[in-house]
C-alpha cells in the first residue's frame, strides 16, 4: 500500500521496516527533520555518540556481533567526513553497515554551501555502493536497496546521502516488499564440478589444511556449524585468519590456532608444508601470505569466496569456487559423504605427527615475571577469569590486539570484533559500545592499548549516558608498542615518536566521567583487580601497567616465508633484511 509522507518520516519508516532497532548517530543542521521524526517515535533507539567515527565503529560492533547491518545517521559536511575512517574499516573487513548522511538542499548542491561536502564523491571508494537521493519519491526504495546491497554477497558499508529538501518534501513510501527487485544478486551456489574436484583432492590429500577467514562468519551461524561438521568428519587440521576466529571453536580437536604474521608456529608451518590448502572465506591477505613466491610452494590450492575478484587476486589457485561459504560447505559435505567419506588415513596420521612436533616448540611461551605484569600473562588471566561467561571481545590495534588473538580463545562466531584489514586504532572502544547495545546482558571487554584507546576516548560519555557496562582493559605499556617493536627490529632501535607521553591518570579519567577506574601494576594483584572489574555494574577503565618493552612473537618478518618465523628476542638480530623493511 502506497502511503504519502515526508522524506524524514520515510527514513524512520524504512528503518523500522528493515527491522532496525538501534541507530548510532550525531545530529546537525542537514538532518534535523530526521531527528525530529526520531523524537516522535519509540521503536528505534538512537545512541548519541561523541564523534561520528565512534558511531560507525559502534555500528560495526553491532553488525559483527549480530550479523545484522549496523545503522548510522550523521549530518552533512563534517559529519560525513568524520565517518570516512569507519566506512573504510567496514569495507576492508566486509562489515554490513548503512550510513545515512544529511546533505545541503538539492538547489544548493555545488555552491560550496555551509557544511556542504561531496559526500558521495568522498565516500565512493570507501563504500560498497552509495547513493545521492534527489527525489523524495525515490528515498524509501533507495534505503531498501541500500540494505539489500549491504548484506548481499560480500557484505560491506553503503551510504545514502539525503538533501534536506528531500527530507522535508512529501512523497510516496514503498515498503521493502514492494521495492524494486535489485539486479544485484550475487551467486551463492558454488559450481558442483569444482566442488567435486575439491572433494577428490581431499580424498587423496596427505597433508591437507583448512585455512578459513571472516567469510565463514559473514555467511552466518549455519556456515560455522557446517565448517565444524566438515572439519571434524574429515579430521583435517584447521587454522584461521584474525577475522575468522570463533568460526571453529578453539577447544575443537583440530584447531591449530591463528595463522599469519603473528600467527602460531604450527599453523604457519602447516600452511607452508601442506599438499592441499582449502581456503574458505579468506583472501590471501599479505599479513597471511608473507613472501609470495615462497608461499606454500607444494600445495594444491582451493579457494571458496563469494567475491569473484578475490579469486586469483594475489595467489593463483587450482580450484576456484565462487559462492557463499554456507552453501558451498553444504555441497562439499554432501559430495564427500556420497562418495564414501574417504580420506587418506595414513597420510593424515603422519601429518598430525608432524604438527605435534611443531606444537612442541610452544611458540606462545614467554618469560613471566613476578615484578612486572607481562601483557601475555594479563591476557591469560583475563581468559581464565572470563572464558566461561557470555563474553564478547573487542580490540584496538597494536601488540595488544595480536596478543589478544593469541591468548584469548573463541568458541563461537560473532564474539570477536577487531579491525583487521584497515588496522584502525580507535576502533575497539566504540565497537564495544555497539556490541553492548546489541547484547545488553553480556560481558563486553575491549582489550586496548593506551595509545589506541585515547583515539576515541570521548565515547566514555556515550558509555555512561546509556549505562553500557563495557570493560576497557588497557594493556598500558606507555608505548606505541607495535611501532616500537618495528623500530627495534627494523630501524636500529631508534624509537622515533613511539612513546605515549603525558598519559592521563586513567583512574581519575574514569572518575571524571563518573565511571570506575582500576589500576594494577603488580602481578600478584591482577586476579583480584580483574574480578573487581567484572563485578562492577558499569563501565570500567582498567589501567593494566605492563612490561614496556615486550615484543610480540611469533612473527613472520616482512618479506619472509612462513617457515622462517621469529620465535623470540634471541632470533631477531638482523632478521629483517632491507628488502623486507620497505614493506608495511
Amino acid at each position, binding site marked *: 500500500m502506497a502511503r504519502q509522507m515526508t522524506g524524514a518520516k520515510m527514513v524512520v519508516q524504512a528503518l523500522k521496516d528493515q527491522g532496525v532497532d538501534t541507530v548510532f548517530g550525531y545530529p546537525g543542521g542537514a538532518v534535523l527533520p530526521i531527528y525530529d521524526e526520531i523524537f516522535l517515535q519509540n521503536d528505534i533507539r538512537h545512541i548519541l555518540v561523541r564523534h561520528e567515527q565512534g558511531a560507525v565503529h559502534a555500528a560495526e560492533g553491532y553488525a559483527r556481533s549480530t550479523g545484522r547491518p549496523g545503522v548510522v545517521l550523521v549530518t552533512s559536511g563534517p559529519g560525513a567526513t568524520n565517518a570516512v575512517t569507519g566506512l573504510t574499516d567496514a569495507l576492508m573487513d566486509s562489515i554490513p553497515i548503512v550510513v545515512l548522511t544529511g546533505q545541503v538542499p538539492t538547489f544548493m548542491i555545488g555552491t560550496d554551501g555551509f557544511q556542504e561536502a561531496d559526500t558521495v564523491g568522498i565516500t565512493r571508494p570507501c563504500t*560498497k555502493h552509495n547513493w545521492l537521493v534527489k527525489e523524495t519519491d525515490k528515498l524509501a526504495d533507495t534505503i531498501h536497496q541500500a540494505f539489500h546491497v549491504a548484506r548481499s554477497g560480500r557484505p560491506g558499508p553503503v551510504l545514502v546521502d539525503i538533501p534536506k529538501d528531500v527530507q522535508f518534501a512529501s512523497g510516496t513510501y514503498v515498503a521493502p516488499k514492494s521495492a524494486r527487485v535489485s539486479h544485484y544478486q550475487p551467486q551463492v551456489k558454488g559450481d558442483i564440478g569444482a566442488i567435486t574436484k575439491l572433494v577428490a583432492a581431499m580424498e587423496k590429500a596427505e597433508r591437507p589444511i583448512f585455512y578459513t577467514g571472516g567469510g565463514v562468519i559473514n555467511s552466518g551461524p549455519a556456515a560455522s556449524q557446517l565448517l565444524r561438521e566438515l572439519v571434524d568428519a574429515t579430521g583435517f587440521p584447521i587454522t584461521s585468519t584474525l577475522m575468522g576466529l570463533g568460526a571453529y571453536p578453539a577447544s575443537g580437536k583440530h584447531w591449530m590456532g591463528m595463522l599469519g604474521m603473528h600467527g602460531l608456529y604450527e599453523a604457519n608451518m602447516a600452511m607452508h608444508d601442506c599438499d592441499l590448502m582449502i581456503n574458505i572465506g579468506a583472501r590471501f591477505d599479505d599479513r597471511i*601470505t608473507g613472501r609470495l613466491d615462497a608461499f606454500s610452494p607444494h600445495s594444491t590450492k582451493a579457494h571458496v569466496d563469494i567475491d569473484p575478484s578475490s579469486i586469483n587476486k594475489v595467489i593463483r589457485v587450482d580450484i576456484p569456487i565462487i559462492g557463499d561459504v554456507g552453501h558451498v560447505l553444504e555441497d562439499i559435505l554432501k559430495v564427500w559423504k556420497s562418495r564414501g567419506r574417504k580420506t587418506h588415513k595414513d597420510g593424515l596420521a603422519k601429518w598430525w605427527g608432524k604438527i605435534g612436533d611443531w606444537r612442541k616448540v610452544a611458540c606462545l611461551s614467554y618469560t613471566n615475571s613476578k615484578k612486572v605484569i607481562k601483557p601475555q600473562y594479563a591476557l591469560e588471566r583475563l581468559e581464565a577469569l572470563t572464558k566461561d561467561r557470555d563474553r564478547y571481545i573487542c580490540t584496538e590495534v597494536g601488540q595488544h590486539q595480536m596478543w589478544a588473538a593469541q591468548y584469548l580463545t573463541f568458541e563461537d562466531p560473532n564474539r570477536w570484533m577487531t579491525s583487521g584489514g584497515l588496522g584502525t586504532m580507535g576502533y575497539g572502544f566504540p565497537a564495544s559500545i555497539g556490541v553492548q547495545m546489541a547484547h545488553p546482558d553480556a560481558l563486553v571487554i575491549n582489550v586496548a592499548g593506551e595509545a589506541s584507546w585515547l583515539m576515541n576516548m570521548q565515547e566514555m560519555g556515550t558509555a555512561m549516558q546509556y549505562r553500557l557496562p563495557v570493560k576497557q582493559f588497557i594493556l598500558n605499556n606507555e608505548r606505541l608498542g607495535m611501532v616500537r617493536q618495528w623500530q627495534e627490529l627494523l630501524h636500529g632501535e631508534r624509537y622515533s615518536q613511539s612513546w605515549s607521553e603525558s598519559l592521563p591518570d586513567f583512574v581519575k579519567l574514569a572518575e571524571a566521567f563518573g565511571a570506575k577506574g582500576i589500576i594494577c601494576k603488580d602481578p600478584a594483584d591482577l586476579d583480584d583487580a580483574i574480578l573487581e572489574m567484572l563485578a562492577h555494574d558499569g563501565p570500567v577503565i582498567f589501567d593494566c601497567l605492563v612490561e614496556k618493552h615486550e615484543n610480540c612473537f611469533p612473527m613472520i618478518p616482512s618479506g619472509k616465508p612462513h617457515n622462517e618465523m621469529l620465535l623470540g628476542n634471541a632470533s631477531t638480530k638482523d632478521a629483517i*633484511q*632491507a*628488502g*623486507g623493511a620497505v614493506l608495511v
Partner: protein
Amino acid sequence: MSALKIKKGSTSHSAYELRDPNADIVERHTLACIVENEPGVLARVIGLFSGRGYNIESLTVAEIDHTGHMSRITVVTTGTPAVIDQIKAQLGRIVPVHEVHDLTVEGPSVERELGLFKVSGKGDQRVEALRLADIFRANVVDSTLESFIFEITGTPEKIDAFADLMRPLGLQEVARTGVAALSRGAI
C-alpha cells in the same frame, strides 16, 4: 644494509608485488560493460582503474537504452592476463554494472573509432590533404578557404595512420571518440 638504501619498487619478492612481472606478457583487451546509467557510474569505473593502478587506453560511454537507462562503457586496457582477469572481476563487482564482456577473448569483434581532424593549408598542401582524405574515405564536414574538418571512422590504427599523414599537411586539432566495439555475428 640500511632500509633506506632500498630503491622504491625493488621488492619483487615482496607481498606488495602482486604481479609476477616475468610470468606473462602485457596484452591489450577491449572490455564492454553494460551499466545502469545512474549518476556516478562512470566515476566508479574510472576510480577503479586509477585506485587500483590499471591502465585506460581508451574509454567511451553513452546511453544505449533510453527507456531502461542502460549505458555501454567500452574500455581498452592493457595488462598481463592476471591483471586483465582482475580488472574484469573488479568491474563486475561494481553494483550498477550488469555485464562485463571481454571482446578480445569472446570471439571475433569489430572496433571502430571516430576522429575529427582540422587541417589548414593552402595550394598543393590543401589538395594533397583532400586526396589522402579520399583514400582514407574521410568525409569533409566543414570547409573554409583555408581549412577542412575531416571526419573519419575506422580502427584506432587507421586513425593513427591518418593523423600521421595529416601532420605535415597542416594538422591543427584532433578530436577522437575512443573505441566502440561489438562482437561479430548473431548473439
